[in-house]
């Protein structure tokens, strides 16, 4: 490596630090804190943090440009050094800076390994065996995950915390699969998906608390309610082009939330609806004592009562619901309507020329997606037993969208991986705490920049007129 290149790299890193300093000086450097109502605000100076962060940024930028230039060993060494420094007992002003340093190192190392990994996979694909292994791996991954999901409650790992998390992840998997129909297959960016989730949840909450209907009766009704909303909202707006549609769906999502928040007589406003009954198994409730006229699951099976039974039951319900969503999508993709969705995603004008009515096709995708959100919503209400408008804010839509995008739009298995990554990891790393959403937003940007097609990047149409021969899937 010549001196000139090193110098230009250093200059580049220096400029980055300069920009970062301009970004951080007011927002990070001066923390405004309340000092009682009379005196207003005062400053808490955080310049040490700022300087440490700037040093980390300097080395981070240096490492990334080293990796980009192809000097793998120095970059890897720098990255490992940063990880070590982040993990070391070295006292930095805040824990966040440890994370910042460590994760910066991880980023550099990933960036470096990427080069090697890309080389390795490319050379592996050259051979028949490698290519076949890749295909088999992708296919059996789904079966493997399914097997793990089915036996999970029976394994010794299944304590209450794990099961709670598993139910949460599966809820998001189901929502992700539902949204995948709209975003991944039909190519419509829906930023208000959580509205249909809310419709499902409130349908179940109201039908069960006001009319005493059970979960299994309301489930299809909630799905239908959500689908009806999907049709009603979709009908006027689906003629709009991509990003306009995104903003309008966002607007609708907010309108529904605001109506739920303010229609006090129906929804009890911000206080929410409580004591929603849980789902039953052939009429048996999951509780220690049954309400009059019903019996508990423990009595029915003749086993002692255990609080985990309810959780396991919920787990299997959501697993079944998610699998139904998946199966439905897979079958739809083989029907003319599913093919039309994908065709529409690829080229709307060509579709119109072929006599496909784009609005109707989009409307079905929208309604089907909404229906699954409605199912998920009523499951959510039955699981939580309490719902309020707080649960249905825009950020939820963004999380579900992030799952679909990260997984690779249109890929079913990608949604599962992305849910485990985005929902599971932050729950395990409670230490990250409030930094979770920050990392979340940054991850969305990074994925778009480095892997815009997602983790499992397969956007192949289900059917082709002239099959492409072994062009190396990527």
């Amino acid at each position, binding site marked *: 490596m010549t001196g000139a290149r090193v110098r230009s790299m250093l200059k580049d890193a220096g400029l980055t630090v300069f920009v970062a300093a*301009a970004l951080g000086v*007011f927002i990070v450097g*001066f923390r*405004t804190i309340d000092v009682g109502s009379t005196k207003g605000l005062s400053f808490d100076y955080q310049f040490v943090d700022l300087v440490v962060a700037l040093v980390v940024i300097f080395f981070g930028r240096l490492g990334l440009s080293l990796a980009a230039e192809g000097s793998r060993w120095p970059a890897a060494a720098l990255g490992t050094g940063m990880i070590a420094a982040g993990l070391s007992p070295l006292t930095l002003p805040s824990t966040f800076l440890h994370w910042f340093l460590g994760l910066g190192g991880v980023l550099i190392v990933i960036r470096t390994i990427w080069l090697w990994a890309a080389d390795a996979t490319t050379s592996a694909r050259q051979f028949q065996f490698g290519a076949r292994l890749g295909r088999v791996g992708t296919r059996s991954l789904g079966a493997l995950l399914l097997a793990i999901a089915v036996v999970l409650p029976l394994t010794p790992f299944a304590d209450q915390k794990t099961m709670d998390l598993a139910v949460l992840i599966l809820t998001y998997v189901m929502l992700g699969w539902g949204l995948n129909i709209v975003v991944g297959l039909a190519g419509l960016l829906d930023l208000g998906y959580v509205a249909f989730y809310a419709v499902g949840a409130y349908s179940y909450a109201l039908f069960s608390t006001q009319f005493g209907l059970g979960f299994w009766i309301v489930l299809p009704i909630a799905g239908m309610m959500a689908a009806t909303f999907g049709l009603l909202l979709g009908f006027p707006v689906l003629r709009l082009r991509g990003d306009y549609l995104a903003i309008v769906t966002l607007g609708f999502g907010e309108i529904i939330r605001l109506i739920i928040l303010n229609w006090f007589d129906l929804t009890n406003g911000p206080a929410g609806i409580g004591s929603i009954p849980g789902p039953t198994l052939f009429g048996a409730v999951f509780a220690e004592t049954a309400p009059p006229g019903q019996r508990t699951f423990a009595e029915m099976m003749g086993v002692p009562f255990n609080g985990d039974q309810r959780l396991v039951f919920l787990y299997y319900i959501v697993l079944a619901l998610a699998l139904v969503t998946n199966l439905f999508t897979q079958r739809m993709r083989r029907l003319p309507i599913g093919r039309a969705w994908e065709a529409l995603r690829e080229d709307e004008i060509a579709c119109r020329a072929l006599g496909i009515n784009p609005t109707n096709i989009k409307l079905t995708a929208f309604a089907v997606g909404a229906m699954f959100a409605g199912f998920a919503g009523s499951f959510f209400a039955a699981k939580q037993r309490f719902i309020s408008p707080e649960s249905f804010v825009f950020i939820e839509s963004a999380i579900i969208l992030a799952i679909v995008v990260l997984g690779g739009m249109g890929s079913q298995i990608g949604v599962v991986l992305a849910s485990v990554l985005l929902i599971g990891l932050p729950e395990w790393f409670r230490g990250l705490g*409030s930094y979770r959403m920050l990392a979340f937003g940054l991850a969305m940007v990074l994925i778009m920049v480095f892997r815009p097609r997602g983790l499992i990047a397969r956007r192949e149409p289900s059917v082709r007129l002239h099959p492409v021969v072994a062009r190396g899937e990527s």
Partner: protein
Amino acid sequence: MAYFSQQLINAITLGAIYGLIAIGYTMVYGIIGMINFAHGEIFMIGAFISLVCFMLCALLGIGSAPVAIILVLVVAMAFTAVYGWAIERLAYRPLRGSFRLAPLISAIGVSIALQNYVQLTQGARPKPGGDIVSGGYNLFSADGFDVRVTWLQIIIVVVTVALMAGFTWLIAHTPLGRQQRACEQDMKMAALCGVDINRTISLTFVMGAALAAVAGMLFLMYYGVIDFFIGFLAGIKAFTAAVLGGIGSLPGAMLGGLLIGIIEVFWAGYFSSEYKDVAVFGILVLVLIFRPTGLLGQPEIEKV
């Protein structure tokens, strides 16, 4: 009548702030055809930088309000512009030429990240901004009701009008404005004619961010309280304003901002303040359905 006049004055003030934010949306959309979803967050950052600067002014003993306001205006515009530049450079430029929705998704990521960044560094509680300018002028009294215009409202309208006039001149008469208009019409052709496209797009983001910073400062002075979440609603309303006026059109953004301000204030004043946001979203939906090009926009021809 008096109530109506008072509401109208308030509406114009609010509309001026929305108009300033809307310009950022409309310029970026005009030049690269993307909705800069993070623009609301830039406005929020501008408001926070202004808050810190006002406090620094007080700390340094700058007592005179006009000096402080001009100082804060310049500093906030400069430092918020860096945010606009950095976001474009890091999150949008690598995606140019990717599929259509990629920049929008990236922008949502930026928006979430910026909100949480400010929440973490500045805390989640609302920040009182204190009153920098107080007092006002009684226009007339009718039906036992004083119609009053505050100095602050006058400042807001004057600053907005001055900036918009300067800005329109910039677009119409300077080489930079000419380059921007060229990029807007045909980016490839502009590049062939020697226009530095990357620089032009960066400067568009810088200008949009600077105007959003002004809006942030005025918002802070007008409402006296800000938190990390103000960017979301203000951003959507300003976007609605840009769409209503015709996205891509500068006078349209100003007109749209004014109309949205009027709709919001009058809805809150005459119907219900709970549903004022629903009214604005409703307008957005109606405009997009019945007149997607907005009031002053040109229809877009989709080519194969």
